[in-house]
């Protein structure tokens, strides 16, 4: 086959646990300057899914219900997380409480193993993923780029994987491109979402160009000077990255190759060319 012939990847919608999702951007709802700015950012991002959490409610407070009403008004699908859980048991109980509160069996599963890196405890993660899948949950595990762990998560019942780009809140982009590329290639048909570490729209575009199915981010938008404008920037970058992936990127080469035709170059002298 001629190497210059393009092999475009057919445009197909993102499908997560059998549900077609319009946007490849999943947005967090935390750390915005105000609820109204959060709402504007979600709208500007055109995200179909937002992440939420459960936290302790003080006596006579109604904070949770008010927040949930605000989210419901945005008309997006919610995915609760188990952020802050440090054991499989804590994560399972938190997921069960979240399922009742939000009325969804989708769960972003986090089991944190280290305070400084917020690195997933992959042993607890696999254990909790198995228990939750048996309990009827659709598990979205926040994991590392480790391929063997990914295999265990799939064996535990996960139909989507969410490897980190870099540690949560660092904004460093894709820290381990080589391993992420391997992961993408190995799990060819599986939805893979880059979760955490995305700091700039270019990072998100790169993830989509590499063939990752979607990106989940929060801080990069929430802590921007203008969160709604940044949400829009991410939406455009993600759309561009996906289009580039579907169009088929050119191969990199080591030496230059002229883009302007050589034939007919004025003053061209065959004797002088080597």
């Amino acid at each position, binding site marked *: 086959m001629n190497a210059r012939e393009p092999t475009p990847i057919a445009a197909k919608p993102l499908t997560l646990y059998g549900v077609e999702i319009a946007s490849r951007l999943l947005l967090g709802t935390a750390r915005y300057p105000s609820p109204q700015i959060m709402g504007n950012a979600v709208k500007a991002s055109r995200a179909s899914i937002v992440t939420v959490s459960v*936290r*302790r*409610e003080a*006596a006579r407070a109604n904070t*949770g219900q008010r927040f949930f009403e605000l989210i419901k008004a945005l008309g997006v699908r919610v995915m609760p997380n188990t952020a802050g859980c440090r054991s499989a048991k804590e994560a399972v109980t938190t997921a069960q409480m979240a399922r009742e509160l939000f009325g969804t069996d989708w769960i972003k599963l986090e089991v944190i193993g280290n305070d400084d890196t917020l690195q997933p405890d992959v042993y607890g993660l696999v254990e909790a993923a198995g228990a939750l899948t048996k309990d009827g949950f659709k598990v979205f595990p926040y994991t590392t780029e480790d391929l063997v762990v990914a295999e265990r998560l799939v064996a535990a019942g996960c139909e989507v994987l969410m490897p980190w780009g870099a540690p949560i809140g660092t904004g460093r982009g894709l820290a381990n491109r080589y391993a992420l590329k391997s992961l993408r290639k190995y799990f060819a048909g599986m939805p893979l979402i880059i979760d955490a570490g995305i700091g700039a729209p270019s990072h998100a575009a790169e993830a989509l160009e590499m063939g990752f199915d979607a990106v989940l981010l929060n801080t990069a938008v929430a802590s921007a000077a203008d969160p709604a404008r940044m949400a829009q920037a991410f939406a455009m970058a993600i759309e561009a990255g996906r289009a580039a992936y579907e169009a088929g990127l050119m191969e990199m080469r080591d030496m230059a190759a002229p883009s302007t035709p050589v034939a007919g170059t004025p003053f061209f002298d065959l004797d002088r060319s080597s």
Partner: protein
Amino acid sequence: MQLASAKRTSIQINGERMETTAATLAELVAHLGHADNAVATALNGEFIPRAARAATTLAQDDQVEIVAPRQGG
């Protein structure tokens, strides 16, 4: 005559020790002023569904978690 529900029990609610006269988890949720559907509960690390709260009795030193929706990443 003393009512059974008037008995005081010392338990932990969301990490804080408190005394309560509530005999069941459902009573406790009501005493704390939560609308039934606005919170989810766990007792000693196990999830207690809304429908099971009325039949869940509280004992000395029980640990209760009462949570609600929040922002998340």
